[in-house]
């Protein structure tokens, strides 16, 4: 089979088990994203596939050739892989075309340059062949790095957080171009990211890695987002409103009404997790939507963030209660002009899991992928901003 096949890969640094029996297949032409928090072992897996680490257990096969087992270690340069990391690592003293043809050693110079020119054309940089890296923007450098990685026609492309060095506006366009180029080339691609949105955008299949290097779920973005099979996976995609309760008559009671208990037995502690867009608001009409099952709510604040708004609210009958819910509403939301407002839960965007009490039910605002960094700070409960947490975790690794 074309592509990558890892089976039973385990890896430890001393006593620290970073990967536990990981298996995965990346078929030719497909893109798999490893998504997980810092320290889940996703970069280690990439380094094992690249041959930058020696495999301790399991096997790695690229295009039907076994490249690593406990006894075998094929060096990186013989694995027919392309690598792209976030810092691009272009050679500053070489111009663009020489950077791209660098990996085509042993090939006649004219032929190598012709291939390099073709790849540069694919990434729309054919007009900049003579430029030096310092003359290019971050996005352009990244495109050169992509052209360079693809020039030797690798059997497998390994991408480690390839877009994280780019600013937000550039990231969207580079990501789209990269995806187009990868699909045209038909190469099998394994990409590591900690950004859920990036994984959903790029991947044909997402593999969620949890701490201790275990795969928690595999599926396409729809499956992972709408059918998370555990609490960790559900929370990975951003803030969740959390309601704790006990199962009674196969239902968990919530302020928005009972929710089916998803197979948990009566008497078991359970929690209902609801995405911010999973609380649906209604207004207008005589009863503000109450007749269609909505519960009256009071909106405490609302912030327009462009194409959506974020609001915080409380249940009207429990306005002195502690629990506040966060809601994401498309377009502008003007509760001050709306009169009576009710809320109900969208069953597609709410999930019931066992309540093992390990994750706080309080909103973790730094986790709010729905919010801009400014608003996160504005609404912050004192938690660290995401990138700071990330850096600390990396430093601790």
């Amino acid at each position, binding site marked *: *089979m074309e592509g990558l*096949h890892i*089976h039973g890969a385990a890896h430890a640094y001393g006593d620290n088990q970073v990967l536990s029996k990981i298996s995965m*297949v990346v078929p030719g032409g497909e893109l798999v994203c490893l998504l997980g928090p810092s320290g889940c072992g996703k970069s280690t897996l990439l380094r094992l596939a690249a041959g930058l680490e020696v495999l301790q257990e399991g096997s790695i096969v690229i295009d039907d050739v076994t490249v690593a087992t406990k006894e075998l270690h094929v060096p990186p340069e013989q694995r027919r892989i392309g690598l792209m990391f976030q810092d691009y690592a272009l050679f500053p003293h070489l111009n663009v075309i020489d950077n791209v043809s660098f990996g085509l050693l042993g090939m006649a110079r004219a032929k190598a340059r012709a291939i390099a020119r073709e790849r540069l054309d694919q990434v729309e940089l054919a007009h900049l062949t003579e430029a030096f890296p310092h003359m290019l923007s971050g996005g352009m450098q990244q495109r050169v790095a992509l052209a360079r990685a693809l020039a030797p026609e690798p059997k497998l492309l390994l991408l480690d957080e390839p877009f994280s060095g780019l600013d937000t506006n550039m990231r969207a366009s580079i990501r789209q171009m990269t995806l187009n180029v990868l699909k045209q080339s038909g190469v099998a691609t394994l990409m590591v990211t900690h950004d859920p949105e990036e994984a959903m955008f790029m991947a044909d299949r997402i593999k969620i890695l949890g701490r201790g290097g275990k795969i928690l779920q595999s599926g396409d973005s*729809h*499956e992972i987002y709408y059918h998370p099979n555990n609490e960790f996976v559900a929370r990975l995609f951003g803030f969740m409103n959390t309601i704790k309760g006990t199962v009674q008559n196969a239902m968990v009671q919530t302020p928005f009404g009972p929710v089916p208990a998803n197979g948990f037995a009566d008497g078991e502690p359970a929690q209902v997790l609801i995405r911010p867009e999973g609380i649906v608001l209604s207004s207008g009409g005589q009863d503000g939507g109450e007749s269609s099952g909505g519960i009256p709510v009071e909106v405490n604040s609302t912030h327009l963030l462009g194409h959506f708004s974020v609001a915080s609210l409380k249940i009207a009958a429990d306005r002195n209660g502690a629990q506040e819910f966060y809601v994401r509403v498309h377009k502008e939301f003007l509760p001050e002009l709306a009169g009576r407002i009710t809320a109900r839960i969208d069953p597609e965007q709410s999930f019931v899991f066992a309540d093992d009490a390990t994750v706080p039910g309080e909103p973790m605002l730094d986790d709010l992928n729905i919010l801009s960094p400014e608003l996160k700070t504005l609404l912050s409960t004192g938690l660290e901003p995401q990138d700071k947490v990330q850096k600390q975790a990396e430093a601790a690794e």
Partner: protein
Amino acid sequence: MSELSKSFEMECEILDRDHQELMQQIDKIAAVIDGNDDGRCAKLTPEMIKFAKQHFTREEALLIKVGYPDVKKHAAHHQNLDHKMETILELAAMADENSLAGEKLKSALKFFLADDIIDADLDFKSFVKDRDI
């Protein structure tokens, strides 16, 4: 594809034969999507899914027979593929008319066969391969 890769071989004739058959059915669906073969995804895919489910049953029976200790876990894995199979059938129902559904179906089938079905079985390869089944 067409031949099972070495890294996907179970070295157990019954299972390898089933996996090979699944692969051929999936190859045929992919060829239809690419316009290289006659047939309809809406007909071929439900047949393939039916065969996959029969295979799961055969495989579980075999694992029970040889006393594989984690048979329940593997049966649960098969059951967890229900959702993926539903998605595959939904895509297949559209794939003959909608090229985007066709491309998504091809991708879903590749992962279904290689990642979900065969790779997961390799966990018990060493347990079944030397047994006389």
